[in-house]
């Protein structure tokens, strides 16, 4: 009989440790890391670690053997090696002071492409869309980062460009579904080709850059994500008949920044009306660009201010006029819209014009309003103009304000805080605007994805029996807490009882009946308890017949469920406590 060799099959064969992999590929660890990031190769957890490690139990990371085998033939790996020799040659030339030869070397530097890797990793377009969340998150973060010695300005600029292209696309196609303003930034969720894509845009504040973060890793990821998003955007744009890359309206870019500066043209040549009024003829844009650039150059000397102003005024007027035409067009489209956009949020703000005050972050609201079919007029942009009077503001329907007191209110407008926009989008319909008046304390902003433990903060306490129990509990706790307000408490109780009566009457139950029910309930309660305990006992007895494994699993599940319930209970209790203190405060004020 042939003796079977050890470690030649199974786990021992299928997995390879990291150091073995590096040795096999004959590259440095840093290069290996980069290659893994590009190729999306990640460590595995073998079923049997001891077998995979050939009998040793030392903690190691394992890679799938075939993954490494597959890396061996990677063209990028060859490029890495070439780059290594190039670096050697360059340092040598520099060390010898041969500047010209170093320059020549530098010019003929090899560069690698990631196209084929993206194609390999995402064989079909939906695959790529599925993984674009992380890419967008990273790009939006870098778009907001300052250029430092670790992050070059080219990188951040590229990231900004791609981000804006993405936003412009989402806004134009009205794909946005949900928005959530968190303390970390703004989460958006868009539905692109049936794929729910969620990304986080940090607030526009200077980022805190921790010292212990390795930017090389981040930049490697960014490099890959840039390429990936570029191809995804190209595909999305071209499939929707838009020219990619979109051109930038330099003038507008200068004025308010991001989104409206992008001109999305249809590939037929005639510019399509974007979500915003970006329909300025291309030639004009070109000339404008030149002019604005020139004016910007001269701006410092203040020589040609007049000329510049007039130019700008004209241009903006043009733009605005166009915008209104567009709106009319949209109105014409209104009938088609249900077929065009299959979500209520896509046409939520259609026909509405929002005037955004300058204290409101325009980048967030512009994107949201545009992608829901509204039109934006920003105060910040208006500031750039001199002839505000020319501008027709009478058609503005909403003004978004985020300041406590507002003077000079215009009659026909609805004044709202920005959260009205978020909550309306999440709900898919308008929420009552009176709750969101400027200076008003806002209702809580809830995540459209709900709660981690399944607690719903909007529900009122439904079960009355529970309420009663809790009431007694609360009373106890109250007594402990505030002994000084003893007389108040008694009043409280009376008040509560009266309140209760009223509530019950409102529900159509006679109070006396309810009382009887309660008393009856107490009698039955004991029985119920008994029954419950019996059932529990029966369950305990049934547990005896479970296998050990099942019992452990059951206990684990029970434990986690109980923890969840405990959290929910905790939240409920807190809510009740808060409500109580609030009502007390109100009463004191009265």
């Amino acid at each position, binding site marked *: 009989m042939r003796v079977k060799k050890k470690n030649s099959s199974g786990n021992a064969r299928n997995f390879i440790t990291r150091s073995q992999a590096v040795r096999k590929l004959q590259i440095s660890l840093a290069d290996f890391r980069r290659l893994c990031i590009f190729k999306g190769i*990640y460590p595995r957890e073998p079923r049997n670690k001891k077998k995979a490690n050939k009998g040793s139990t030392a903690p190691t990371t394992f890679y799938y053997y075939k993954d490494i085998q597959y890396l061996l033939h990677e063209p990028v790996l060859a490029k890495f090696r070439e780059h290594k020799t190039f670096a050697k040659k360059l340092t040598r030339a520099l060390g010898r002071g041969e500047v010209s030869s170093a320059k020549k070397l530098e*010019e003929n530097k090899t560069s690698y492409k990631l196209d084929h890797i993206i194609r390999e990793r995402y064989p*079909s377009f939906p695959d790529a869309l599925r993984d674009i969340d992380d890419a967008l998150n990273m790009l939006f973060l870098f778009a907001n980062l300052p250029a430092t010695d670790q992050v070059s300005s080219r990188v951040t600029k590229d990231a900004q460009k791609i981000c804006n292209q993405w936003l412009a696309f989402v806004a134009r196609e009205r794909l946005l579904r949900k928005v959530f303003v968190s303390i970390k930034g703004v989460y958006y969720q868009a539905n692109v080709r049936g794929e729910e894509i969620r990304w986080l845009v940090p607030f526009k504040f200077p980022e805190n850059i921790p010292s212990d973060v390795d930017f090389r890793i981040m930049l490697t990821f960014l490099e890959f994500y840039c390429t990936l998003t570029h191809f995804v955007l190209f595909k999305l744009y071209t499939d929707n008949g838009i020219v990619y890359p979109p051109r930038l309206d330099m003038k507008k870019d200068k004025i308010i920044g991001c989104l409206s500066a992008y001109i999305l043209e249809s590939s037929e040549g005639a510019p399509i009306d974007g979500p915003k009024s970006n329909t300025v003829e291309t030639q004009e844009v070109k000339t404008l660009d030149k002019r604005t650039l020139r004016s910007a150059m001269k701006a410092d000397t203040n020589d040609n201010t007049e000329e510049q102003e007039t130019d700008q005024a004209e241009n903006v007027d043009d733009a605005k006029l166009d915008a209104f035409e567009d709106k009319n067009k949209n109105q014409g489209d209104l009938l088609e819209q249900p077929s065009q956009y299959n979500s209520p949020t896509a046409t939520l703000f259609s026909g509405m014009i929002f005037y955004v005050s300058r204290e409101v972050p325009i980048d967030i609201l512009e994107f949201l309003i545009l992608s829901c079919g509204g039109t934006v007029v920003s105060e910040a942009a208006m500031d750039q103009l001199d002839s505000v009077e020319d501008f027709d503001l009478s058609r503005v329907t909403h003004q978004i304000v985020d300041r406590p007191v507002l003077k000079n209110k215009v009659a026909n407008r609805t004044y709202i805080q920005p959260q009205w926009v978020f909550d309306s989008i999440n709900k898919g319909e308008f929420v009552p605007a009176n709750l969101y008046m400027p200076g008003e304390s806002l209702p809580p902003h809830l*995540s459209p994805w709900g709660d981690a433990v399944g607690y719903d903060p909007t529900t009122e306490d439904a079960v009355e029996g529970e309420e009663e129990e809790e009431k007694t509990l609360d009373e106890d706790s109250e007594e402990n807490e505030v002994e000084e307000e003893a007389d108040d408490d008694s009043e409280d109780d009376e008040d509560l009882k009266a309140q209760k009566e009223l509530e019950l009457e409102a529900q159509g139950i006679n109070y006396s009946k309810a009382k009887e029910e309660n008393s009856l309930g107490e009698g039955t309660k004991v029985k119920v308890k008994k029954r419950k305990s019996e059932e529990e006992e029966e369950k305990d007895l049934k547990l005896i017949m479970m296998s050990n494994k099942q019992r452990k699993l059951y206990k684990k599940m029970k434990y986690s469920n109980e923890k969840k319930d405990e959290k929910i209970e905790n939240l409920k209790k807190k809510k009740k406590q808060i409500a109580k203190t609030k009502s007390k405060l109100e009463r004191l004020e009265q």
Partner: protein
Amino acid sequence: MVCDKKDRSENKPSVSTKRTVESLEVEEPKPTDDELNVNGLIDESDSDDEDEDEDEFQSAEEGIVSSKFQDLDESVADGGSDSDADSDAEFNKLLAVDEGDEAELEYDSTDFSDDTSSLRDKLSGFKSKTILTDDSNVIETKFSDGKPRIIKPEINPVYDSDDTDGEAQNTIGNIPLSAYDEMPHIGYDINGKRIMRPAKGSALDALLDSIELPEGWTGLLDKNSGASLNLTDEELKFIAKIQNNEQTDDSINPYEPLVDWFTRHEEIMPVTAIPEPKRRFIPSTSEAKRIMKIVKAIREGRIIPPKKLKEMREKEDAENHNYDLWENSETTNDHIMNLRAPKLPPPTNEESYNPPEEYLLTPEEREEWEKLDPSERERSFIPQKFGSLRKVPGYTESVRERFERSLDLYLAPRVRKNKLNIDPESLIPELPSPKDLRPFPIRCSTVYQGHTGKIRALSIDPNGLWLATGSDDGTVRIWEILTGREVYKVTIIDISENKEDHIDAIEWNPEKSIGLLAVAAAENIYLIVPPIFGFEIENNSRLKVENGFGFDTFGNTKKANLNVNSDDEEDDSAGDSKTSAVNKQVAQWNKATQKQIENDIAIVITCRKIVKKLSWHRKGDYFVTVQPESGHTSVLIHQLSKHLTQSPFKKSKGIIMDTKFHPFKPQLFVCSQRYVRIYDLSQQVLVKKLLPGARWLSTIDIHPRGDNLIASSFDKRVLWHDLDLSSTPYKTLRYHEKAVRSVAFHKKLPLFCSAADDGTIHVFHATVYDDMMKNPLLVPLKKLTGHQLVNSLGVLNTVWHPREAWLFSSGADNTARLWTT
């Protein structure tokens, strides 16, 4: 000339020693002349050979000096052979002395000084002689035979060459001088005479030297001659120059004036008068041609300037990026080993800039959050509430969070995990409700109180009327089961005398027609006929016991054919009879004494060790007892009708915990600490060995249908064995919190129970189906609690009522209880 001298001088290194002799004669006028001569010579040599070094000078000087000495010597020889011979003899003598001396002490300085002084005396004498004989020139002496001998003065030939200069005094050639180290001489002269070693610096010499330092004294010793080395002023200067790296030759001037051969001054005026050519002033046509060529090439696009090339490349790159990567792709299914990175979980309400207030942390929660290590925190942020959007500050941890996500993406191992998204209740097995499985004991209806020690044993009589209990207080009591009235009490052990003894087992004879109670107390087994049944039954019982006396063997136990030798059948038949004959009697059947008869004891069986368990055969003739300490005789089978006791095993089977008869087959179940063995008594073979897997079994019970067995263990387990299946348990149940003491099947109903030290009794339903394919159905029915824990002992024994679903239990709290439906 001088060079030659030097060559030679190596051959006569000892010459300089003679110079000391010379130096002694400094007072005389001659040597001064010599010295002068020498000086002149040195000067000459100085001028002649510049590259000679110090040694050469030295040797040259020596050579000169020695030559003079030779002259002198020759003159001495001229002077007279007498003194010569004398001196020879003297020398020989001296040599002998010297040699002897040398054997003992080497180069004693005093010796030497003596020698030299004598030598000097000689020399001085000798000198005077030569001076005397110088006048006559011819010395007339006699030969030894008396004949006159005329020694004429040697002719001193005058040669120009230095060879004959007498310089080559020492003729030893290349032999190193060290070869003569032990000799008094240092070589031989041309005449074959010994050249004596010059006296080395004796004390007197040293003294003399110290008194008046000779000119050029250095304090050094010449290596070749052994004499002190003197140097002249010139020589010293010369050496100093060499030491300072200076030119030794004064004629060379190191600071010669610089002659500026190649001038650094540019001439203003042209050297030649040729006018500048024209070509210097007009552009080169050939160059223009070449440039035009390049320009043409650039225009035609054959040459691309580097700047443009770079731009083109960039443009190309940009265009290369703009294409549809997924142009003709088809959807492919993911490979099983390809695991997608999980998406980040969606943000929750807590993260909102304006969350409901209940999400905000209380100060205690906040403190707790801050105390935790960042990696252990449930969430990475503290929920905060801002009144409006403008108040929201920037988030400081975005970069780190993104970084950690990227680390997760490429560093974290990915595993496919099946998330169980099921209701935990669905894991609970589907079992029939206990309500449908009635009757079973639910509550405690009677408590039998009266014992003053813990009740280890209890038994219900086959008619189900009387409960017998045996307690640590040494008494056996019989109770009426329903009323709990104590009807009979007998003291078996006087605990005041035998504190260690207990009543360990008690069992009614299963025959209904007799009322016989077997009680195992310490080493004895008492068969009691309690007077509660009426005369007929009591009489029957007594008769049954007494019938056996006819079969009494009175000590000569006949070998029974019951012996079971399972493991080793070879030595079974042969060894059996012999060993049994040798065997002592394993148990003694004794008639009851008068006192015992008064206590209704019919017979007493005395074993060798403490009897722990007792169990009747179903027919009531045999009963088996367990004495765990008595080795291979730990299981004994007693026959009531013949008063016979047999030990079925020849070898010890470990510590036996329990034994039971099969309910209807001739089989014996023996439970040791770890295993349960089943023996066929008729064929005397081991039928089966069960491996319950418990560390220490306590009791076993056999299902009334005989194909199932339950065992309890001290390690909290109850094990159900299906004897038709494998030897490992069909079900291992672990629900007791402490050691399980007792398990029992009901004889009629599908019930069994287990009792443990945690004070609880679990009642189970156990249906065994006729269908072999169907596994037995076990349903836990009830957990009975009531017995108190005493010294961490709970329920010690249980027994079922023979007909009803009633359970009797005895505990460490000195009570027995009846549990009824």
